[in-house]
């Protein structure tokens, strides 16, 4: 039996949680969460941690190059953050772009998209 201490990153409350696992890695107990999303986070974190990635891509607009903020519309596997960054770094967008526009469909994971976070 092992325990893991986690800080929930779902909301700014940052609850400290303790997850108890059996020797096979199955979850026996989750304590310290104050909502059900915390429980989901803890489950995901000990089995398959994911993160929402935010970054920027270069967008060419009539008045020159600018940075366009982007994010994944779903969390992606934590271990793939740097793979995702390598793709984002080489991504260029062209104006006009609207908030929510999909820049790269099926980004890293099927069904996950890289989307624009503002108009440009």
């Amino acid at each position, binding site marked *: 039996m092992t325990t893991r201490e986690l800080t929930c990153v779902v909301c700014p409350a940052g609850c400290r949680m303790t997850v108890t696992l059996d020797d096979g890695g199955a979850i026996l107990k989750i304590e310290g969460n104050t909502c059900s999303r915390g429980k989901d986070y803890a489950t995901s974190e000990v089995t398959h941690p994911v993160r929402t990635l935010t970054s*920027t*891509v*270069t967008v060419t607009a009539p008045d020159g190059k600018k*940075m366009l903020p982007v994010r994944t519309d779903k969390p992606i596997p934590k271990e793939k953050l740097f793979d995702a960054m390598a793709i984002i*770094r*080489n*991504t*260029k967008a062209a104006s006009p772009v609207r908030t929510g526009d999909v820049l790269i469909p099926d980004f890293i994971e099927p069904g996950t998209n890289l989307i624009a976070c503002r108009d440009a």
Partner: protein
Amino acid sequence: MIYDVLIIGAGCTGVMTARLLSAKNVKTAVAEARCDVAMGATCANSAIVHAGYDAKPGTLKAKLNVRGNVLMKELCAQLGVEVKNVGSHVVGFGDEDLPKLQELYERGAANGVPGLEIIGRDALRKMEPHVSPEATHSLWAPSAAITCPYGITIAAADNAVTNGVDFFFNFPVVSCARQDGVFTVSDGTKTIRARYVVNCAGVHSAKLAAVLGEHDFPITITPRRGEYFILDKAVGNLANSTLFVCPSDRGKGILVSPTVDGNLIVGPNAYPIEDGDDRATTAEGLAEITAGARRIMPDVPMNMAITSFAGVRATPNIYDFYLKRSEQVPGLIHAVGVESPGFASSPATAEYLVGLLEEAGLTLTDKADYIPTRRPDGNHVQFNRLSEEEKAARCRENPAYGKIVCRCETVTEGDLLDMLDAPIPAVTIDMMKKRLRAGMGRCQGGFCSPRVAVLIAERTGMGLENVTKNGGGSWLVTKRIGEE
């Protein structure tokens, strides 16, 4: 081409000398190791136009300080640089300080300093309500003033360029040869040729003398570092005039003074250092200044410090400035060991050096079309120094003056563009800062420095990755993200 005169070092002494020569029918060049004028002691000192009671009578220091005090105020008026005649007090604590104050009074009288007076506790406290209650006397010197030393040096340099002086920046002199009466001075790759050379290299001047061909040069320089704090403008009015502590064996002691921009300056200490370019502050030094400042002004709010810095003085192994024609190299003039009051003296030192050039054989006649202002069209006044009506008019003429870039010091895009277009174009963050105070306020450039950098990059076309804080290797950013 062969210049008539090459000045090495663009501190206040070198620049003031270049400016005087620019009014004459000679061709003058200035070689400066760094990227701007006023990069050494001129940009990091107490910013005081000393009255001239400190130097021993009969010395060059004494003579040039007293004359420099008068000339500096005239020059500031001519070039549109602010100077405030705030006066100074040397504050004594108890009767044991009285003999020293008396000595300074007598020196000042002999040096020709006007208006000196020793005043008592009540008169002092009336003039300076925040001075320590333990202060008992002061030597009041009404002719002492405050200005911005690098501000007037930059203005003088612009004025010199306007009248035909050439500045060579990033030109550290590493070798020199003299043949047929012409010096060829090199930075390792480029050369400048001139008939006369003036060594104004500040803390490096004694070492430069050897490069310029002097053997067994009699002067050595010990760099002495002094640390300072600048306090927020909100407390700039705690001192009405410059307050010195009655001097001890180690320099003039720690002072508290208003600055011409409305801040309070506190410092310096004085410690010998090895490297003349080492301008690091230390925790001990800053603590020492704090303690020293509290002695003269017990309620000085050090928590209102907005920045600290250190300057390096070029202290020679003799008492006086060493301003002389070389005995070994014809056509070479030295301005070595010009420490405090080097700035206050500089307009007079420049006159003296020009005199030495004439003695050495340089013929000087007045230039008919000399322009007495910073630029051919006058002295550009910064937006935040204008009256309300003038501000409104300026914005109507050019909307760029309506766009504030540095919000702490109210510096507009128009002001920045003016400086990019100045006789000496401002192409680094610190050049803009020294000329306009952009980034010198409460937020210390946190807000405006990226904006200033982008403007410089766009207008010069140099790319943001090539904009520096202060020349040399002081890069700001590495590369555009996504471009390897």
